[in-house]
């Protein structure tokens, strides 16, 4: 559909007003909200994510696109609920206890929402048990942990251990990120995965959850 491509193009331009107007137009034309989401908004974000990975655009470009995504998503939400369109999965995110650097975690949340995931953001200074309690309470299938400080990244290990202790391994996956963290560290602490930036986090979460 031409209008879905125009939505995707407007989103790539970070034009939130145009995305909103086109989404309204598409809904008015009777297109299913699920199609507008997947073939318009998510398709546009996928291109943005790929351009970011290839370093053709930069993080602020991605954020402008994300804002445009929200403009469309806000209009779609009631229709998605009415159509019974499920989210791609529920994710709990937070920055580790003793750490208040949450901008990276916020970016991951923005990108995940843009990709159609439901995000429970626990904020910063989050204790290990709070991550796991929230995942159980919310029925989330993935815990995302962020740290900037070298002294707080070690607490990620405690979350992974708690997931195992509570018999949630395999049911609740874990992924880590942040400046001092890498794939080796993730493997060493037993996390399911690592993402070096927000765009890749979306890919990794999709892979982990089969979404």
């Amino acid at each position, binding site marked *: 559909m031409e209008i879905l491509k125009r939505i995707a193009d407007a989103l790539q331009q*970070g034009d939130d007003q145009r995305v909103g107007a086109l989404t309204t137009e598409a809904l008015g034309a009777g297109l299913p909200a699920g199609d507008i989401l997947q073939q318009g908004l998510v398709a546009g974000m996928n291109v943005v994510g790929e351009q970011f990975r290839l370093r053709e655009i930069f*993080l*602020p*470009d991605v954020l402008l696109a994300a*804002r445009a995504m929200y403009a469309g998503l806000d209009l779609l939400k009631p229709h998605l609920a009415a159509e019974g369109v499920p989210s791609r999965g529920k994710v709990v995110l937070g920055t580790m206890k003793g750490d208040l650097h949450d901008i990276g975690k916020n970016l991951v949340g923005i990108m995940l929402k843009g990709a159609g995931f439901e995000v429970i953001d626990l904020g910063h200074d989050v204790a290990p048990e709070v991550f796991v309690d929230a995942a159980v309470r919310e029925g989330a299938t993935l815990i995302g942990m962020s740290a900037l400080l*070298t*002294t707080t990244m*070690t607490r990620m290990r405690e979350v992974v251990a708690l997931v195992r202790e509570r018999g949630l391994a395999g049911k609740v996956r874990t992924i880590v990120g942040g400046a001092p*963290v890498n794939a080796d*560290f993730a493997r060493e602490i037993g996390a399911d995965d690592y993402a070096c930036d927000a765009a890749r986090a979306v890919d990794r979460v999709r892979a982990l959850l089969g979404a």
Partner: protein
Amino acid sequence: MREIVRFAKHEAVPEAREVLAAQGLPEEVALAPRLRRILDEAMSTAATLVEPRAVCEDLSADRFASVLAPLGVPADDLVVGRVYPRAEGLALFVATLGEALPGRIRQLFDEDALAEGWMLDAVASAGADLLADRLAERFRHALVARGMDDARVLPYSPGYCGWPTRGQRPLFDALRPEEIGVTLNDSCLMSPIKTVSGVLVAGPGEAHRFRPDFPFCHDCQTHECGWRMASVLGKA
């Protein structure tokens, strides 16, 4: 001597190129117009909203030992613990950009002005680091005036290189930065958020040299200690 330092606003606003470089963005000349606009707005907002101030106090090695002691960690197990006995001068510091700028950043994110919020956060982070650098330079000048011509100053902060975040508590007890509006929460995190703290360690470049073979070095991926040491081991 304990000193409250009031900076001019412009002293807390970093160069645009530093902000861009820190975020992996291209140089200003290559920046897309829409990003240029966001950067310009962020720099302008920061210049208006920063309320830069600091508290700094030089102290003896014995007194600094008493700041580390409540941690119950052998000093030799921390980078700063191994470095400070070689120092010719030490000064505790807390420097902040104030509450208005972080408040504006939160507001932008709340309004889904994500790119603008992110850019302003980047400017603020660089600005907070700039204040620490300015304090280090002030300290160095003071030491040179006392005849320590070869003094090289580096800031060391809780949260890095093994110095636990809970090390903020005794540092705050000693320095009392509440006077400049900086407080700690139960997790020893500072408010306002764009605040830096630690100890300025002054000495010959060699005073800062250490072998990064601490247990926590194994987990560290930034290896910032390398260029930090390099920055003070060269010629002045």
